[in-house]
């Protein structure tokens, strides 16, 4: 009995501080989101759903599911996903295709799919699948990054194919997020700067062509460049968002006292929740969110740097990039610095699929962080890769080494 207790205690101790910090930041962001969703959705919820707490209830359910999923994922050794990544990607590609054929149309996009009574967005799953797949391919072949041409078939084709399917939802924001994340992963994997510059210029050109060839995208983009040119339609959301932020001032109008949520901001609790935070809690609130995401990014990158193997490194880096890139795209849109692409603020915005997938990917991050060698927390950067790999193989070996120490 005594031994067992000791064992449990030791096991707990093996989790590094960074694990708890990440968990803490995640909880804070999610709670922040729940509070703000309640505040910003209550009036809409009452008129649309006849229940002031409709969106709170749904988000709470998503949070509960998401936290359970996160916990489960955090207990699964991430290395097991390496071999499954190709299957994972194949699965999301088929789901994406399914959505295109028979998806539920919401807000003019067919992003949702109903499966066993639950609606969710396959593009959310695709984000994670692409990260897993890319990390897996890049870690399998260490020399692959030396010649960018050799990446075209193993990474380029599947990623592009998935992206096109996401784009066809149409979900421009998520497509951007996926492509930028993959680009960042190539960068961290050691791709030559020359190749990356080439890739990014090609991507930029393709992006511009894509925006300019569809009227509604072009309108949105031009509205972003000059919101006042068309304040009634195209620039409306950007202007209303800025009005919300400005109304908040430094201290905010107070929790629950947003005025912009009364129809002026079309999606006050999803894509534009940050604007409502800005209005109700002011610059203080928005700065807090930004600091939380900076800390999140810092922790994620640290976890990546300390990951026991290359797959873990790239996976952690990819997941962190994905969450931060989405946050930046969202914050950029809300503050009028980037065009509006319909990306939620990770962990904060209302939305089941996005929240659950984000929490699941944080579960992966947590697992990677708990897989790192304990010593690594003390002496960063000098340990050999062999020992780390041996240490990080399984929790069992770690606990045994702990016992022997």
């Amino acid at each position, binding site marked *: 009995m005594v031994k067992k207790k000791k064992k449990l205690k030791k096991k707990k101790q093996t989790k590094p501080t960074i694990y708890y910090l990440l968990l803490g930041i995640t909880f804070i962001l999610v709670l922040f989101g729940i509070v703000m969703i309640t505040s910003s959705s209550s*009036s809409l919820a009452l008129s649309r759903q006849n229940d002031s707490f409709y969106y709170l209830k749904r988000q709470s359910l998503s949070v509960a599911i998401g936290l359970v999923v996160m916990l489960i994922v955090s207990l699964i050794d991430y290395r097991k996903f390496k071999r499954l990544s190709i299957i994972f990607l194949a699965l999301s590609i088929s789901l994406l295709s399914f959505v295109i054929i028979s998806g539920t149309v919401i807000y003019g996009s067919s992003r949702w799919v109903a499966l066993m009574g639950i609606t969710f967005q396959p593009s959310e799953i695709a984000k994670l699948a692409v990260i897993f797949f890319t990390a897996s391919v890049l870690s399998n072949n*260490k020399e692959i990054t030396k010649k960018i041409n050799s990446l075209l078939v193993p990474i380029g084709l599947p990623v592009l194919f998935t992206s096109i399917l996401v784009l066809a939802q149409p979900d421009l924001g998520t497509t951007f997020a996926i492509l930028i994340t993959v680009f*960042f992963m190539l*960068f*961290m*994997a*050691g791709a030559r700067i020359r190749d990356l510059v080439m890739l990014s210029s090609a991507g930029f050109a393709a992006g511009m062509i894509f925006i300019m060839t569809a009227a509604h995208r072009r309108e949105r983009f031009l509205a972003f460049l000059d919101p006042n040119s068309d304040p009634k339609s195209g620039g409306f959301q950007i202007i209303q968002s*800025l*009005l*919300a*932020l*400005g*109304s*908040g*001032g*430094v201290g905010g109008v107070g929790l629950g006292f947003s*005025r*912009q949520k*009364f*129809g*002026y901001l079309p999606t006050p609790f999803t894509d534009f929740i940050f604007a409502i935070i*800005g209005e109700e809690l*002011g*610059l203080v609130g*928005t*700065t807090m969110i*930004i600091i939380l*995401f*900076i800390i999140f*990014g*810092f922790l994620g*990158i640290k976890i*990546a*740097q300390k990951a026991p193997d*290359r797959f873990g*490194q790239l996976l952690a*880096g990819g997941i962190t*990039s994905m969450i*931060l*890139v989405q*946050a*930046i795209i969202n*914050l*950029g849109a809300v*503050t*009028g*610095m980037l065009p509006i692409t319909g990306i939620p603020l990770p962990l904060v915005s209302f939305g089941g699929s996005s929240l659950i997938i984000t929490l699941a990917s944080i579960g992966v991050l947590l697992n990677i962080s708990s897989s790192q060698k304990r010593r690594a927390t003390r002496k960063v*950067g000098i340990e*050999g*890769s062999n020992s780390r790999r041996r240490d990080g193989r399984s929790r069992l070996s770690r606990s045994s080494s702990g016992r022997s120490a």
Partner: protein
Amino acid sequence: MNAKKRQTKMRLSLLFYFLLICLVAVFSKLVKVQAMDAKKYEEMAVGQRITDHELTPDRGSIYDRNGEILALSTDMDTVFVTPYQIKKKWKSAKKIAAILGESTDTIFEKLDSDNGFAYLARKIDKEKADKLKELNIEGLGFVKESKRQYPLGRLASHIIGFVGLDNIGLSGLEIQYDNKLKGKPGKVITEQDINGYPIPGGKNTFIPSTNGSQLILTIDKEIQYKAELELSAAIEKYEAKGGNIIVMDPKSGEIYAMASLPDFDLNDFSNSESENFRNTAVTDVYEPGSTMKIITATAILEEKLFSPDSKFMLPGSIKIGGWLIKEAHGRGTEEFTLSSIVTRSSNVGATHIGKVLGKERMIKYIKRFGLNSPTNIDLPGESIGSLLSADLWSKSTIATVSFGQGTSVTSIEMIRAFSVIANHGVAVRPHLVDQIVSTRGKRTSLASEDSNVQVVSPRTASLMTEIMEDAVGTGTGKNAQIEGYSVAGKTGTAQKPNTDKPGYSGYIGSFIGYAPAKDPAIAILVTIDEPKGAIYGGVVAAPVFSSVGEFALQRLKVTPDQVDKGDKQQ
């Protein structure tokens, strides 16, 4: 291998810094929006959700001195259209036109306009509005608008005046007291969501409107009616161009009646000639003629140059400054008294005493009697009589001014001057509004005695009254007699100067007087502009004075002062 690891770590760090820079950029934008430009955005946000809706107050009513209503505001229906909401425009236009009695084309044009708003018809009958409502055409809107109504139509039209479509006073007392009558608009300020519904817990301010104050006039509706009736009868009889009548209390300046003909219908002023809108008793000047001899004679008595019994041997005509002054009715050389110069209205006599008075004193008394300054009556557009300045007087000017030619006055100035004599030498301010009653019932009396000044001594005034009593009793003003009352007054027959060329053409016959002579309750001025057939004030104007005066004295329950005398005469 280690190099690769280090490179990855370094690149991860670089990536973090890149993400950090992006987030810091967002933060700096937030500082700009939420701190530096916050006011601007906040104002815009407030501007888009705060709406003001004005509540129009009721315009105050106007009553005569006995509470008879002269002007009031009633709610009428106004129909407007939101053109883009109208379906089947031509069909709708046809139906609407049939009800409003307008052409389908005009209505269609309004329904088809590019504006978001157009009036279809303003202030229409409830009946028509109800019929339009029954059509159930989407895009038609109905609001209540206050419409000014004048139940007595033409009566006192120049005094009351009228308002425009937007209920702003345009003439008469309606413009003079516009600030008091119009009231203060109220406001409903609401904070609205994007669909125009009030935001729960949002700002919701209601400032009630304050209705306009009511005016209680000095006018007596019945006297006004009688005055207008008699004046128009005289004008008709003598085919005159027009005329004025003013009935005033000489002691207080309260005006019982004031009319200028031609007049107009207050309820249909837009179809009247704007020429008729002028209240000529106040806005127009005329050369008074013989009524001016009262001023000359008063000045002589006040200056103690002669007494009423002073005798003068007067020729049939007199030459002065190259002009031959003649009498209205030719005569030989005769003996006159100062009194008979007035009662027989002798131009030669007036010239004679005028010369004795001299131009300085003549000008002084004209000014003291207020014939060259506004009476400050509470009506818009008051003119003042003109008087040549002393250095411009020619040799004949003293002669013509003495009997009322070559100088001009307004009717209101003239009745005020006569009232000075009636009122024992004290001038009063003529006025039309007795009291202003606020919606809360607060009464403000406008009568003030500040402007009352002693112009001539009571003795002079009573001597003049006696002379004028003779003028009515035995002189030119016999037609002005009122049974049972002593009357003092003076006739006037003046040549009208041409407006476009030198010289005179046409006449103005007038009579100004008051009764009872010793303690007057009323002073009346009557002028008849360009009468035909007869021109003399004693013929065309004095009878109007008599009948209106009799009516007014009875209505005001003034005790007759000559009952015995009248009986004896009979």
